[in-house]
């Protein structure tokens, strides 16, 4: 470890934490795996793997309405995750917690169910220049269908949203402001509380895409006063295919169902169907039961580690990594927001990100290269793609040193 590592506090026992993640204990191309692609998906601790395994080995049955023992067990553990998610987000009630496939589906549910009912011709939806495609396209589709207008909060050179410009976009026709809590491409932490307050003053609702925030910061939907908040299980160390949409009860109650099918109904006749109560009205069909149970274990895991500890440790990784990477000649960090999560996106003069990614992989280092599903962000910086290192609490200073050494050897190849 380099001298700089002494600045990192010892308050967080990262070596012990790493033992909880079996995937990290392997070599790739003969080198220890350095996993720096956490913004794409996070690795899973034994607690999650074991919970899913136990469900399949011991408790497997379909949930709800079953009178037999297994069904009661699976229903109980699946529904327990709803309570855990309520606590995780500090929601008012567990009936406000809708299970979805992930943040993408959470946004689509709102755009489709709330949007179709409430957005009229000439209305306006505001998103931001930092959004992931998942928080652009559903709104674009809605605007196209309704002849509504999509407006975009611009950003500055650091990759921060310009709040004064946002203020100007708000108006009597603004129906919804949908922004990400943390940018996946640049790591910018948006001032969502302020953004929400301003939207409410203009009479608009808000949706916060928390896909990148849930694994890194404490979320309190009551303090934020967000109308909708969504995140994905797999980015918070749970399995893929499961996530949460939180919505304020009175809004959810007034919304039509998203999909039709089993579980979301109260009574069905060929003449008329009545819908189930919250949250089941929005949960048609057999859900991802194992995924839900796995996500519950994941939320327990991060809660036990403590999101405050996680955020503090990751900030140290960010500070160390930013300094270490900046010292590489020809390397430029894209996204230098003052409030930033542990994501470092960068370009190196004369070397394409795909070549960097492939050569780092040969050294066991996993990074993501490309547009990170945020093409407008890339266009804004006039670059086709970046290389992105995104950190989690199990990453170490030594791994950042390995990344730096890896980048030096990439430069040698192309020197």
């Amino acid at each position: 470890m380099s001298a700089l590592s002494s600045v990192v506090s010892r308050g967080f026992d990262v070596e012990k934490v790493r033992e909880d993640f079996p995937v990290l204990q392997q070599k790739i191309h003969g080198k220890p795996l350095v996993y720096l692609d956490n913004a794409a998906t996070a690795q899973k601790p034994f607690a999650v793997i074991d919970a899913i395994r136990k469900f399949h080995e011991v408790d497997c049955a379909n949930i709800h309405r079953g009178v037999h023992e297994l069904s009661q067990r699976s229903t109980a553990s699946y529904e327990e995750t709803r309570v855990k998610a309520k606590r995780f987000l500090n929601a008012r009630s567990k009936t406000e917690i809708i299970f979805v496939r992930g943040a993408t589906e959470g946004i689509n549910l709102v755009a489709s169910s709330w949007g179709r009912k409430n957005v009229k011709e000439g209305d306006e939806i505001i998103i931001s220049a930092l959004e992931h495609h998942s928080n652009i396209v559903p709104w674009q589709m809605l605007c196209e269908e309704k002849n509504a207008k999509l407006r975009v909060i611009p950003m500055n050179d650091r990759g921060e949203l310009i709040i004064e410009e946002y203020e100007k976009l708000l108006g009597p026709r603004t129906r919804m402001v949908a922004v990400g809590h943390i940018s996946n491409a640049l790591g910018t932490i948006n001032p969502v509380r302020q953004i929400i307050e301003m939207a409410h003053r203009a009479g608009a609702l808000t949706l916060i895409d928390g896909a990148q925030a849930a694994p890194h910061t404490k979320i309190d939907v009551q303090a934020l006063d967000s109308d909708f908040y969504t995140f994905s299980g797999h980015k918070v160390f749970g399995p893929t295919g499961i996530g949460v949409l939180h919505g304020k009860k009175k809004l959810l109650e007034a919304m039509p169902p998203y999909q039709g099918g089993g579980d979301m109904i109260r009574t069905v006749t060929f003449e008329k169907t009545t819908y189930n109560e919250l949250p089941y009205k929005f949960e048609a069909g057999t859900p991802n039961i194992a995924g839900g149970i796995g996500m519950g274990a994941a939320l327990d895991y991060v809660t036990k580690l403590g999101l405050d500890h996680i955020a503090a440790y990751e900030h140290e990784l960010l500070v160390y990594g930013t300094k270490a990477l900046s010292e590489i000649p020809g390397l430029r960090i894209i996204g230098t927001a003052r409030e930033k999560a542990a994501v470092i996106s960068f370009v190196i003069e004369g070397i394409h990100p795909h070549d960097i990614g492939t050569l780092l992989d040969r050294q066991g280092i996993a990074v993501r290269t490309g547009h990170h599903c945020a093409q407008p962000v890339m266009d804004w910086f006039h670059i086709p793609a970046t290389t992105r290192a995104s950190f989690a609490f199990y990453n170490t200073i030594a791994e950042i040193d390995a990344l730096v050494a890896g980048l030096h050897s990439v430069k040698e190849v192309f020197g």
Partner: protein
Amino acid sequence: MIDDLYQETILDHSKRPRNHHPMDDANRKAEGYNPLCGDKLKLYLKMDGDIVQDASFEGAGCAISTASASLMTESLKGKTREEALKLLDKFHELLTTDTPASRDLGKLVVFCGVREYPARVKCATLAWHTLKSALDNVTEPVTTE
């Protein structure tokens, strides 16, 4: 650190691409786009009847796609349309199958390492997709998808 993918010839052609310029008197042009990485490429051909007299390209991409375009334009000159299309097939075979490399490929065999990197096959084939549409006189940009 030279590995099986980034062979000397590939690095050389990526750093100093040959025929890397627009061509004013081209009579065939085509554009290629790889939506996975955002790479764009413009290909110019000067055809004399059925024969490729000259070939050049513009655009910046990764080392694999740049070297591929550079080596492709070199190997096209003097070939008939049919020979060029045959070369395209052989090149595609080199990248996607285990069959031994055809001798007709010449220098292009340096791309044999790409088959071990499925995520990079599209980088190597971008120029060739574009060649196909230039030869077919397609004016819409072609993508690798």
